[in-house]
């Protein structure tokens, strides 16, 4: 007992426990998001369900994809179905318990399709009109083949779960799947395709359909423009601190300023961006160059350029710190070698030191991009909106429209999760967007870490005795 106390075993266990808890929390969080986000694209089986509402014994029917199920406290099962109606009159998702379900059959011909105007439909096909005169109803397993071989002017008649019948032209149908007939490999293909579409399409129906391409594009373009601003200033500031400044109160002040830029809440930058960049700077630009369109503001309103500038200010310390670390790692002997040959300070810097620092600068930039991509709060003030009608880059002069409002992955998450009414329908998209954002950031960070490690190894090799 005494030994137990003096050895600090309790403390060691507690500290190990703290580490495990932290790591476990991260793992759970990321795993949870990954499962929730990815399962949305998995072609879940379709069921034809006869059920009754909790308080109403009359039988109802639905045709829907079983998204998930769980056991309740009473030991029964509970299922979540996604169903669709042509004119979405009521909710798309429904939870049913064992007790409510009368029959639940998984027939091979049940299908999901993507229609140009109705969006996603889950239904049972009943009739295929190949030409004005001939109609067929193939055996259930032959539906995919028949639809594939049908002419484009063919029509398909469907029965929805609520008894509604619908006749659609095949040309208007973008995609058809028969999840109940798909093999595992085919399911993977559908899954991959869904994921891809998610990345390249624009959101539809308030973000509950389609993809997130504009948000992804907006995120990428803001951070790219940000790098244009932050790289030269960040690198040169680091060079100043490490190579030029003599130790003294000025250097001390700059260092404290760097710490402060790093530690100041991002919302403060957002407010500064709005008040100074947008209203003051943008307002002045409007008066000088765009006075003909006033009082309609051009730059005097939140927009892409202000988002990028605000982010540049926010990530400046990241670049500075990383570059300075890189500079510190360059052996003194290499600099002296250059100086001894008659190169001036700046020539040495430009031709020897900076090229050697490139990996560190890149690391800093990647970290800055990762930080910027994850920021949301300041962006909602300076130019990110829930739905931007146009991309900031197009074929129209001047091609890059710095004054346009943009969409952003992080804000899309916030908006879909909290501002949109149909939570059940939008949640899968929130998860997938979150997953994409996390993956993007993890990827960026990993590459920064790898780059930094490579850098370390390289200079270690240099120091080996010859």
């Amino acid at each position, binding site marked *: 007992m005494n030994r137990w106390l003096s050895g600090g075993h*309790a403390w060691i266990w507690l*500290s190990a426990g703290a580490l495990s808890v932290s790591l476990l929390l991260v793992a759970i969080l990321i795993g949870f998001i990954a499962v929730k986000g990815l399962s949305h694209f998995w072609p879940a089986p379709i069921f034809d369900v006869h059920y009754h509402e909790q308080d109403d014994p009359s039988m109802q029917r639905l045709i829907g994809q079983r998204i998930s199920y769980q056991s309740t406290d009473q030991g029964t099962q509970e299922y979540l179905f996604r169903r669709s109606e042509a004119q979405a009159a009521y909710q798309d998702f429904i939870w049913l318990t064992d007790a409510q379900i009368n029959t639940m059959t998984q027939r091979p011909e049940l299908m999901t399709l993507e229609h140009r105007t109705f969006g996603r439909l889950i239904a049972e096909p009943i009739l295929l009109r190949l030409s004005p005169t001939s109609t067929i109803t193939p055996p259930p397993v032959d539906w995919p083949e028949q639809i594939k071989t049908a002419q484009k002017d063919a029509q398909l008649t469907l029965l929805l779960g609520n008894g509604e019948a619908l006749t659609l032209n095949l040309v208007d149908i973008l995609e058809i799947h028969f999840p109940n007939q798909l093999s595992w490999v085919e399911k993977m293909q559908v899954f991959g395709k869904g994921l891809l579409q998610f990345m390249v399409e624009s959101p539809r129906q308030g973000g509950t359909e389609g993809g997130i391409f504009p948000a992804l594009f907006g995120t990428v373009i803001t951070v790219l423009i940000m790098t244009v601003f932050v790289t*030269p200033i960040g690198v040169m500031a680091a060079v*100043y601190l490490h190579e030029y400044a003599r130790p003294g109160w000025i250097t001390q002040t700059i260092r404290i300023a760097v710490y402060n830029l790093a530690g100041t809440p991002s919302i403060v930058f957002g407010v500064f961006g709005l*008040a100074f960049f947008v209203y003051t700077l943008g307002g002045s630009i409007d008066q000088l160059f765009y006075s003909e369109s006033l009082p309609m503001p051009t730059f005097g309103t939140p927009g892409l350029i202000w988002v990028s500038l605000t982010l540049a200010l926010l990530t400046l310390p990241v670049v500075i710190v990383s570059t300075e670390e890189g500079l510190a790692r360059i052996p003194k002997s290499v600099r002296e070698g250059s100086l001894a040959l008659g190169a001036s300070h700046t020539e040495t810097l430009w031709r020897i030191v900076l090229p050697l620092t490139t990996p560190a600068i890149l690391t800093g930039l990647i970290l800055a991009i990762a930080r910027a991509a994850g920021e949301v709060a300041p962006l909602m003030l300076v130019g990110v909106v829930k739905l931007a009608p146009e991309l900031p880059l197009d074929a129209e002069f001047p091609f890059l429209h710095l004054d346009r409002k943009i969409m952003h992955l*992080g804000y899309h998450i916030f908006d879909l999760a909290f501002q949109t009414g149909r939570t059940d329908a939008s949640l899968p998209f929130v998860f997938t967007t979150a997953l994409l954002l996390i993956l993007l950031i993890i990827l960026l*960070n990993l590459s920064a870490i790898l780059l930094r490690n490579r850098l370390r190894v390289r200079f270690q090799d240099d120091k080996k005795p010859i």
Partner: protein
Amino acid sequence: MRPNPKPKQAKQSAFQTWRRCRDAVMSLMIRSSGYTVVISLLLMFVYLGYQVFPIFKPIQVTPIETERLSEEHRSSFQWHPVNLDPSALVYRLAENQRSLLTTTSDGGIQQWFWLMGDAGTPASFQKVHEFTSHRAPILALIPESQRRGFLSLDQQGHLAIHYAPTGETLWSGYLTNEPIKAYSLSSSNQILGVRLASGETRYWHLLNPHPQISITSLLHKVQYEGRNQAEWVWQSAPSAEYHDGKYSIVPLSIGTLKAAFFAMLFAMPLAIMGAVYTAYFMPTRLRNWIKPSVELMEALPTVVIGFIAGIYLAPLIEAYLVQVLFGLITLPLYLVLLSWLWSIFPDSTHYRLKSSLWVLLIPALVAFVWALPYASSLFESWVFAQDLRQWLAHHNIDYAQRNGLVIGIAMGFAIIPTIFSLAEDALSSVPKHLTEGALALGATPWQSLQGVILPTASAGIFSAIIIGFGRALGETMILLMASGNTPLVNMNLFEGMRSLSANIAMELPEAQAGSTHYRVLLLSVLILFVFTFVLNTLAALIRQGLKKRYQQL
């Protein structure tokens, strides 16, 4: 012998001049970039200060020459005769019926509210504010339009400007010594006209754009109309009845501090102990692997954490409140118990396993979570003898789904990596020879940690805590999404809060540039900025001092 003949002298010297110019330009650019950092920080301070300053500007009352006002303008004034019998002066303030002003013969003005009594007591008129700026009987009470301020004129020619909701007299001064016959206030509340007994008309310009804001309204409890007691209120959205925003920054500041406090409570033990373990008991190879993972964790966007916290964690905690609370409390005890059980095994296994303890603990933690529902329901029935939620309701403790507990866990989770990596740096950069010295003297690893490492690294750990705290103060998305955003003034773990940062994110996009609301929001940003500035500077100084000390050791 020399293969390359010297280049022509003129060309050479031109090149040298170009070289020197290039160098000078580059140095200049580099230097100015260095200063840019300081300048941008300074600019942020100065600019925000400059935007906030007008709300604290004293009121200015300046006479205007009659000719300066156009005929048209002058004819638009509506003149009201003054009232010479002060006791008859009862005034219904603004459009609403709940507030009355009365005057006394010695120049006092009282404001009365129609207060709803608590259950059982009847509603009654109560005197709430008293304005004592006049020494002579009041001639006129002049309400401002669009807002709830009013002016008062007395028989000696004194003017006072008051703001009714806060009960403050903002300005008082002397206008004229001639008897006043009639007065008029323009609809912009900016021009006061006075007609004297001599028939002369005089005008004053009143510059009073932000009457709502004063130290009192920002910081002190104020009894607003219709409220039974003085309170700190943040209510910026003007409802039809209340035109003026109520801008007390106290609820927001308390909300910010409350959120940061609970987050620190959750994050500090985990982060610091995790750092101690990583820096001191973990083999280097593993440490090289753990550190980047923690960095990754730091990069997790807070919008994602906020989303999970708001949509999943909050209902989960509501449903499993006892389990969560019980688990948070018993987890450390559980670990201590495990360590004691473990110490029964022979000594040699301990130190061999010490470095992989954290892996061994993961199944132990899973077992803990599995057993939690059983243990906690036992605990619940034993301590509370009823459902915890019922118990809370019985003791008048409100419970909101998005509350301090949710924020503590979610934001704590977000700041763990910040504190962890800084603390780990501080711990692992303690010079090795110090520990080795202690170990050589026969101390156990724990004793050397306690006696040598922790005291040396304590300043660094302290600065890690400060920075983590600063981050918690400024965090926005998690609070916006999971705190409920109710501007309350309390430290109840089970109620929500609204932080400065979330409030800004919510309200600034709607606030009109230059309005009082806009400036107060900027003031709250400035408060946040100054506060984190102090914290960051402190942490930076500590770290710089520490670096020097490590070099000396």
